[in-house]
């Protein structure tokens, strides 16, 4: 009987130790970030009411108050990015977005390095880092990047880190 209870106590203790000290999320989820991203072309077309193209329903609230009355989706993608790996997203013929998750905080935020580069005007020129930032993204909270001018209107980037 003593052996039985001792074994049982030890098993329960071991389970408690594992439950407390083992991470709640699987290891694979710790090592990657899932970031949804939209690139939107905003233009002024003298409309009475703002126009939102298809595929922008999830970020329509973010578009309110922006310059322009017409918003069209250029791209929308869900990126699963391993930590420390940089991905490159071509926004249009001139702008390129670079995105690199660098760490995941204990509270769930994902720290990322992000930059938008502008291609040179001349073929032998170098790209210019137009906007660079380090951000800690809270899951579900949107980030908007704006000011990427085009011949007509401008490009807007919206991103959100997904809760895993």
């Amino acid at each position, binding site marked *: 009987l003593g052996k039985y209870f001792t074994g049982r106590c030890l098993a329960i203790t071991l389970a*408690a130790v594992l439950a407390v000290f083992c991470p*709640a999320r699987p290891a694979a989820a710790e090592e990657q970030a899932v970031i949804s991203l939209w690139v939107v072309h905003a233009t002024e077309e003298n409309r009475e009411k703002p126009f939102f193209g298809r595929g922008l329903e999830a970020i329509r609230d973010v578009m309110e108050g922006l310059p322009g009355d017409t918003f069209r989706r250029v791209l929308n993608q869900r990126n699963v990015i391993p930590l420390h790996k940089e991905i490159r997203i071509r926004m249009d013929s001139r702008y390129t977005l670079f995105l690199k998750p660098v760490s995941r905080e204990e509270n769930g935020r994902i720290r990322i390095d992000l930059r938008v580069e502008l291609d040179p005007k001349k073929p032998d020129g170098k790209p*210019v880092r137009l906007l660079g930032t380090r*951000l800690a993204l809270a899951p579900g909270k949107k980030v908007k990047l*704006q000011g990427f001018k085009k011949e007509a209107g401008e490009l807007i980037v919206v991103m959100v880190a997904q809760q895993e």
Partner: protein
Amino acid sequence: MKRRDWKMIEANFDGEVKAVLEAGPEAAAWHGALEKQRAGIRAVHDPAVIQDAQFPAFMAGIREGMETPQPLFSRRRIYAAVSMAAAALLIALATFAVFTGSPEPVKANEVERVYTELEGATVGYDQEDGVTTLWVNISRDDVLQ
């Protein structure tokens, strides 16, 4: 032997019938088994009682057991100590888990730095209604080819 014969032996054993059974090895064995069963049942029914003459020896045995010191590292003591330690550890861990818990999920993004390398351009950011906005102010001439 037939089933009927077994029953006859049992009835004869109980004195219910006075049939004279033909002796045989099987009948004798069954008869012996019935006797043993009855003796066992009787023993349970009449529990052993310590007689007055036996009592001093009985008490001496108990006294000896009480006075003999238990070994310091007996298996039973080790089991008890380990069980106590395990229970204490379990309670400590449970308390730790309840009072510390997991970190609170954050409710906002955080901008650690923002910069531009384009001469003449300005950058900035703000947070409103849970949305973080970063912007760059550039001249259209910087972009147009």
